[in-house]
């Protein structure tokens, strides 16, 4: 009974969410077709859809997608490796936790995007500066969650494993990792989000290629319908990736 009511409620909130998006689209349609909003400011949704089909059909997005995807994967891989390694070793000592945890938390709170001009000077306008920025930004949530995850494993569990003869490796594999995993997964999801945001953002500010770069280019060429099509394309990709990561996180939590 309670379960059915819950399902009904979930259905109802879904309906409201979809209704909201539909209403927004209708408003958009009305604004461009009947209320005379300038098409240079806001293109017609039908025109945008047409452009989107065109972009997907010709595959012209591929070179820019490849650049952005490469930057993103490289940044996330670097941040994950360094963040988890540093986090694990810091978590091994109370003293190090007391020293580094506040330091990382403090650095995390400053707007790291301001380093972009510096990174462009260091690494140029190409992918390297985007990778550097994405790595710097996503390093912090990952290292902080790794410290928290490994640093707060319940003492009794470690003692119990030791008393049963667990080796260092067994302790790591069967106790520390499963205990820390849920917290680390949350940090990875946050790192994922901020890496994507900062890379797309920095591409729109100073770059030579990439999806963010292309969107700015289209805006400068006044190709508004196509620009909107690209934005829709990027949004669709990020929604898909976010869904995938949330799903993986939930699975990891259940197992962990």
């Amino acid at each position, binding site marked *: 009974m309670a379960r059915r009511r819950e399902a009904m409620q979930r259905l109802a909130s879904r309906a409201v969410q979809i209704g909201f998006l539909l209403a927004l689209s209708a408003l958009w349609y009305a604004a461009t077709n009947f209320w005379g909003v300038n098409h240079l400011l806001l293109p017609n949704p039908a025109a945008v859809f047409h452009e989107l089909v065109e972009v997907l059909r010709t595959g012209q997005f591929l070179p820019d997608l490849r650049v952005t995807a490469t930057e993103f994967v490289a940044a996330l891989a670097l941040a994950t490796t360094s963040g988890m390694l540093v986090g694990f070793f810091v978590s091994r000592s109370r003293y190090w936790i007391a020293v580094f945890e506040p330091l990382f938390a403090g650095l995390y709170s400053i707007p790291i995007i301001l380093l972009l001009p510096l990174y462009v000077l260091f690494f140029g306008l190409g992918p390297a500066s985007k990778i550097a920025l994405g790595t710097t930004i996503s390093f912090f949530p990952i290292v902080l969650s790794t410290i928290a995850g490994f640093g707060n494993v319940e003492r*009794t569990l470690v003692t*119990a494993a030791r*008393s*049963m003869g667990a080796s260092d490796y*067994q302790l790591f594999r*069967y106790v520390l990792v499963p*205990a820390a995993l849920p917290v680390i997964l949350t940090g990875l999801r946050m790192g994922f989000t901020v890496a994507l945001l900062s890379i797309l953002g920095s591409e729109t500010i100073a770059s030579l290629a990439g999806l963010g770069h292309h969107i700015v280019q289209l805006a400068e060429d006044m190709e508004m319908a196509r620009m909107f099509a690209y934005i829709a394309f990027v949004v669709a990709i990020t929604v898909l990736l976010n869904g995938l990561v949330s799903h993986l996180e939930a699975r990891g939590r259940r*197992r*962990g």
Partner: protein
Amino acid sequence: MSTGEIAIRIKNVGHQFGEAGEARHVRALTDTSLDVVRGELLCLIGPSGCGKSTLLNVIGGLLAPTGGTVEVAGKPVRGPMPGDIAYVFQESALFPWNTVDENIRLGMRFQGVPKSEHAGRAEKSLEAVGLAEFADHYPGQLSGGMRQRAALARALALQTGILLMDEPFGALDEQTRMILGEDLSVLLARTEKTIVFVTHSLGEAVFLADRVAVFSARPGTVKKLIRVDEPHPRNPAFVTSEKFTALRNELYDLLHDEIRAAVASEAPRRRRGANGGAP
């Protein structure tokens, strides 16, 4: 039992936390000597902070004492001895991300039991504690009493000669505690293990123990050993017998003074000089 061989030999063991002069310096245990006979159940009872859990950790090799030695099966204890000693902790130390069955198998993996024996041993130990139907449950899905049974099953599957239990039923309600105590007595009569059992409960100590070691206030040491001559498995009727009551009262008298002393020794620390001269 007095003629039995010695399973655990505790010689002049003392332990202090921190260095003398430090604020956190505590002399938990002093000059404690005790022999645990093979196959007996020895209860350690005493006021809070008397070092009984410290002694248990020293026996288990989880803590190196600042003085004295412990020998298990003739060998000096220098670290955990998973082949000889299994532990049941106060709070369930089950791994929450593993099922009961997986917990038991993991213990055996840590201890180095050949994989072919895992299934049989896990099943047997779960049956022994009456949890056979809950093998695939996660600890979070069990009641406190069932979790402690599962922890006991994990320890039993290790098939050690010695079992150390640190207030295993301490967090449970009185009734669950009573039932678990009765079941433990039945179980232990069959397994012939040597058990050292730390408890706060006078009734639990008398009901379970072959001998009860009463600890003095901090720094703790064994003040008196009391023998409970009653065969295992203990009958529930034992609880209402005169013998039980007499032993329980004797323990109460011994402990009462020590608990007073423990409280008194805490008091001047807290309000030193506040009302000097008062008795």
